[in-house]
């Protein structure tokens, strides 16, 4: 009897266990849908917030991914707890209207004191438990939350097609950040390249350049505002300027800088190098006596004959015999002329022969070959002429080299002299000649700092017969020159960095990327920028102490030559354009003082677009503001004015 009751209890328990398992799955699925609902709602919320507020981009990714963890959490929370049999029994009793048969049976079945009544209850429950079907009892259905979750997901997907709202200020800020990063990257790259190409000779210069590189790197890493970036740029630019000024204090650089400004880019070649190039060209050309202009004339004549030969080839009739004769004579005359100029043109003779053989195609081919040879020869002759001109410019001796600002040549000359003296194989005449050259170079060397002193001592030592001492002095002078050249190189490097910094300031100030932004104004030693033509160059006086005594006579500036027509008149400046000094007073908080000036209208078409000019002006204004050049009381007004210009 007891065994029967136990088996009946097992029937009840088995049925309940199946129902409990099904119920657990049902809960898990419902939890999953609830999780999806929560996730979809969060996604919608975050996506909506992203569309309305300037949230970072990753929030959109988070919005799309948040659903998954919510889904899993819902599933776990729903299915985590295993329903107890007692709970399930009560739930099934209620669900199936079993009048608490199963729950009472479970309770009494495990209670030995229940006796016969307990067995009766269990039997009754087992009868009812046999008919239980968990699938009917707990059907898997989509809960209401599923519909809401799908609706939210659809809304999220729909939101993807809606453009997000961003304020102008925010967009401007983002653009600024992008620009600052771009500028930083370019600045760091430029400086890195500069350091790789030519490591600075002086530690302070290296330090300054490293500071620029660090600033560029900082721009790429940190999120800075426009004003912060400009402030940092101005700070580092000031550091570079101070460095340049420090370098400029060395008087020995004066001549070098002058030479650098006047140079056309080919002065760095040594005399020996030039001589080698000239000899190589002469070897190629042969010994032509004609100049390039004569060769041009010869070429034009040949081209005419080529045209005539073409006409002859087209006609191919009896009446052309006279023309062939005429062409043959002209070619003979041209061949003679070329021989007189020293040019070897065997193709011309071949053409005459071909003409005689009535082979017009061959004639044309030979003439074309002659023309090609002639063009090559003419180009080489031109190059030769240019090299010879440069050779002429190079100083012939040490004095001239120092005077002309050719330190490399002078250094080589000094080293050569020092070696000669060291070798002590000089005859008295040669020694005298050397002494004379050194003595003559003392005066021009005055512009090169200690070089003059070394040359003086060398001259004295040579006079005193102390050849080794003189050799050492000359070597010292060469070293001093080398040091000056290194300083000059550092200064040029700093100048280039300063220009890059200015360009960076302009980019940041105007919100343009590096490639769009070109530094306006005159670049020392180069072509003017594409900005307004005659911008004042703030950094022109890096070695400012020279400005008062600037001597630019003899400097050739073809890029600054007047061009085109102008109605500005000749001679003195118009009275209306003469600068007038106006006394102003600071009145913080009040209106900006304004004056009306008469002006002269400048006719003609500007080559600079308004936007570019406005951008350049704005950049300068930003720079001035960031460097505290504008009184604080007027900073707001100045900023507003230039901001309005942009609009």
């Amino acid at each position, binding site marked *: 009897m007891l065994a029967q009751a136990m088996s009946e209890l097992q029937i009840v328990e088995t049925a309940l266990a199946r129902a409990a398992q099904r119920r657990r799955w049902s809960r898990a699925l419902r939890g999953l849908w609830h999780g999806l609902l929560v996730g979809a709602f969060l996604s919608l919320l975050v996506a909506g917030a992203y569309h309305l507020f300037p949230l970072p981009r990753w929030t959109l990714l988070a919005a799309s991914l948040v659903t998954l963890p919510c889904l899993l959490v819902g599933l776990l929370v729903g299915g985590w707890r295993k329903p107890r049999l007692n709970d399930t029994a009560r739930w099934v009793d209620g669900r199936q209207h079993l*009048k608490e048969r199963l*729950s*009472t049976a479970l*309770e009494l079945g495990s209670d030995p004191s229940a006796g016969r009544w*307990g067995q009766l209850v269990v039997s*009754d429950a087992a009868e009812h438990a046999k008919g239980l079907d968990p699938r009917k009892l707990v059907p898997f259905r989509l809960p209401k939350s599923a519909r809401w979750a799908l609706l939210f997901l659809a809304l999220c997907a729909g939101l993807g097609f809606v453009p997000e709202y961003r304020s102008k200020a925010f967009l401007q800020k983002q653009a600024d950040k992008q620009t600052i990063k771009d500028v930083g990257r370019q600045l760091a790259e430029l400086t890195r390249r500069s350091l790789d190409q030519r490591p600075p000779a002086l530690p302070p210069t290296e330090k300054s350049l490293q500071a620029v590189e660090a600033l560029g790197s900082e721009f790429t890493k940190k999120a800075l505002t426009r004003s912060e970036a400009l402030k940092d740029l101005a700070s580092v630019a000031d550091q570079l300027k101070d460095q340049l000024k420090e370098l400029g204090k060395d008087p020995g650089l004066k001549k070098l800088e002058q030479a650098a400004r006047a140079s056309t880019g080919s002065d760095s070649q040594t005399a020996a190098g030039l001589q080698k190039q000239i000899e190589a060209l002469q070897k190629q050309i042969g010994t032509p006596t004609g100049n390039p202009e004569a060769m041009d004339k010869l070429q034009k004549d040949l081209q005419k004959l080529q045209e005539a030969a073409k006409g002859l080839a087209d006609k191919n009739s009896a009446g052309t015999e006279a023309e062939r004769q005429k062409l043959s004579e002209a070619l003979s005359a041209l061949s003679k002329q070329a021989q007189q100029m020293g040019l070897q043109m065997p193709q011309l003779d071949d053409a005459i022969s071909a003409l005689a053989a009535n082979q017009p195609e061959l004639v044309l081919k030979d003439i074309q070959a002659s023309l090609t040879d002639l063009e090559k020869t003419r180009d080489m002759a031109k190059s030769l002429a240019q090299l010879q001109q440069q050779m002429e410019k190079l100083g012939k001796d040490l004095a001239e080299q120092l005077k002309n600002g050719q330190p490399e040549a002078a250094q080589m000359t000094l080293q050569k002299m020092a070696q000669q003296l060291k070798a002590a194989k000089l005859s008295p005449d040669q020694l005298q000649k050397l002494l004379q050259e050194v003595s003559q170079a003392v005066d021009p060397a005055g512009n090169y700092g200690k070089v003059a002193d070394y040359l003086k001592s060398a001259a004295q030592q040579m006079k005193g017969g102390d050849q080794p001492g003189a050799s050492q002095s000359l070597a010292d002078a060469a070293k001093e020159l080398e040091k000056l050249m290194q300083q000059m190189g550092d200064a040029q490097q700093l100048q280039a960095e300063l220009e890059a910094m200015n360009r960076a300031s302009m980019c940041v100030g105007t919100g343009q990327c590096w490639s769009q932004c070109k530094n306006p104004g005159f670049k020392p030693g180069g072509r003017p920028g594409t900005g307004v033509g005659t911008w004042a160059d703030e950094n022109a006086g890096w070695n400012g102490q020279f400005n008062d005594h600037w001597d630019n006579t003899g400097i050739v500036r073809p890029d600054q030559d007047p061009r085109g027509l102008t109605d500005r008149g000749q001679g003195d400046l118009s009275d209306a354009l003469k600068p007038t000094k106006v006394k102003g007073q600071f009145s913080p908080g009040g209106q900006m003082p304004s004056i009306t000036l008469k002006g002269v209208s400048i006719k003609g078409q500007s080559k600079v677009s308004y936007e570019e000019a406005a951008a350049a002006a704005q950049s300068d204004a930003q720079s001035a503001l960031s460097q505290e050049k504008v009184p604080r009381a007027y900073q707001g007004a100045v900023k507003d004015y230039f901001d309005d210009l942009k609009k």
Partner: protein
Amino acid sequence: METEQAVQNFRTAHANLRAELGKVIVGQDAVVEGTLISLFAGGHVLLEGVPGLGKTLLVRTLGEALDLSFSRIQFTPDLMPADILGTNIVMEIPGGRREFQFQRGPIFAHLVLADEINRATPKTQSALLEAMQEHQVTAGGELRKLVEPFFVMATQNPIDQEGTYPLPEAQLDRFFFKILVGYPNAAELTEVLSRTTTGASVQVSQVLSREALLDLMAVVRQVPVASHVKDYAVRLVLATHPGTETAAPIAGQYLRFGSSPRGGQSLILAGKVRALTDGRFNVSFDDIAAVAPLALRHRLILNFEAEAEGITTDHIIAQILKDVPRDAQVVVA
């Protein structure tokens, strides 16, 4: 097998008794069912209804169907306790001597019909207190046991308030059920008219002996009740206690006093009888809920606000049944 047989006997006896009552009583199923539940549970019944609805007839018929002694007491304002319990009177005994002898009152019967109980004075009504609770009376300084089983079937009329005395709470609490007797419907009324106006007489048979009844009453008490079902009954009773944490909101608003533990006993015992009559071996939530109005309505004391608003205890019990969850531990899937 004895248990199954006892259960089967119970169902048979119940059905027979029901059938015999049905010969006389037309309709009033709920009243008859409530009365039988009280009978098998060993409780007293208070039947309340307007005159002429068959309250007295029901009790009288029940007395006829059971092989039990039956007495009827018509409660009147001048009825005295001694008229119910009995009294010592001087009796002449052989030998010419006289002595006091106790003359038993009508209370000394198995089934006592207390007709229009609220017409007696509280003093007389109180005479029933000891008898109903302890099944004994104290008269003339002596304790006298009543016969078992002992049932009091009282009736009262809710109208005719003049000259009536509402039953005291202690008295009311001793009734197992308070059954409201309602009007018959058209079909029932037609049947009543047919039966009572044709001169036909109905013979009610005795279907249950005293011993059999006592056995069945013992079977009822053996029916098991699951802990969560018992807990439901407890929570129902506790929900009627105003001013406690367990009180239902409506109890706090409209009740002065809630049910006594006797209310809980009534719920469980009545539930057991109902389970047996339904062919089950266990008590269900439905059993408890079904008997709750009968068991609790006379145990709840309304406050002034409830009386002013016309709220009845039945309203309150219905609301409590809604508010109290059947199984607080079950999580709905």
